[in-house]
């Protein structure tokens, strides 16, 4: 009985894994934000990927004077790649200007569906130091 249950669990895991890895999507994406030397840098990384297709990523840095969500912020710079492979990174650096609240958003498109991840807004001064 134990063997049967273990075998069953393994079979389901293997089937799901195979289904997602061979035909579907199975990846781990991250987006990070950092300030330094008067600049703000956003990085999107395809950390882990077992998917068949590639992922298209558009990385955007938003800014506002007040703390708010990315939807209400103003996009100040963006970059795009049609295929971000496993382990690859997409980097975007912009001037900190007078400082303010900054946020990075990565829009990714896979399997004809577009979603996004955004990191929490961070308050930087003109020198790119976190306030």
């Amino acid at each position, binding site marked *: 009985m134990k063997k049967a249950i273990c075998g069953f669990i393994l079979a389901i895991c293997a089937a799901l894994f195979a289904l*997602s890895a061979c035909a579907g999507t199975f990846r781990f994406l991250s987006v990070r934000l950092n300030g330094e030397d008067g600049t703000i840098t956003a990085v999107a990384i395809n950390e882990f990927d077992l998917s068949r297709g590639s*992922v298209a990523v558009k990385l955007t840095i938003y800014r506002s004077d007040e703390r708010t969500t990315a939807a209400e912020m103003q996009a100040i710079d963006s970059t795009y790649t049609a295929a971000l492979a496993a382990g690859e990174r997409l980097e975007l650096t912009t001037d900190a200007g007078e400082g303010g609240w900054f946020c990075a958003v990565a829009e990714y498109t896979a399997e004809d569906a577009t979603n996004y991840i955004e990191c929490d807004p961070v308050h930087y001064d003109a020198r790119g130091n976190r306030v």
Partner: protein
Amino acid sequence: MDFRERLIKLRDENRLSQQELADMLDVTRQTVSRWESGRSYPSIPQMARICSAFAIDANEMLGCTAEKPVDEAQTTHNGAEEAQQKPHAKRKFIACVAVLAALFAAALGGLIATIVYAVKDAGYDSSATVWVVSIPQNTPMIVLCVFLALFMVLIAAIFIYMIIRGKRR
């Protein structure tokens, strides 16, 4: 087969408990237990009573004579069974060790990955991550139904197994 093994075998064959045998021999149950574990041996009068109780020759009881042919056959049979069981037990043990090693490796890998990500994140002011897991949009509904059914069967099987195991205990 030494004395203590013969004693255990004879007691089992006669379906006697240690206490019942002790009563027959006019000794305590602890004394019988000590004989069977090889921690002590019966005195000559006690040995005589044992032989009398089981209607067995003292030489045979002490292993001074060859085993009876029937016993030999039984011993050979038991030996073959043990020989068959040993590799099976070894395989089981190796399988358990392999599973534990795999789980430990997975846990260790997870811990290392977590530390690596924590260190990586520490270098940034803000970060967000996401697992993107999806199946193809054109996957037939029947496939999803089969997976769902398999999960339900799995849960039911575990539930039934736990009930059966609970009853056995």
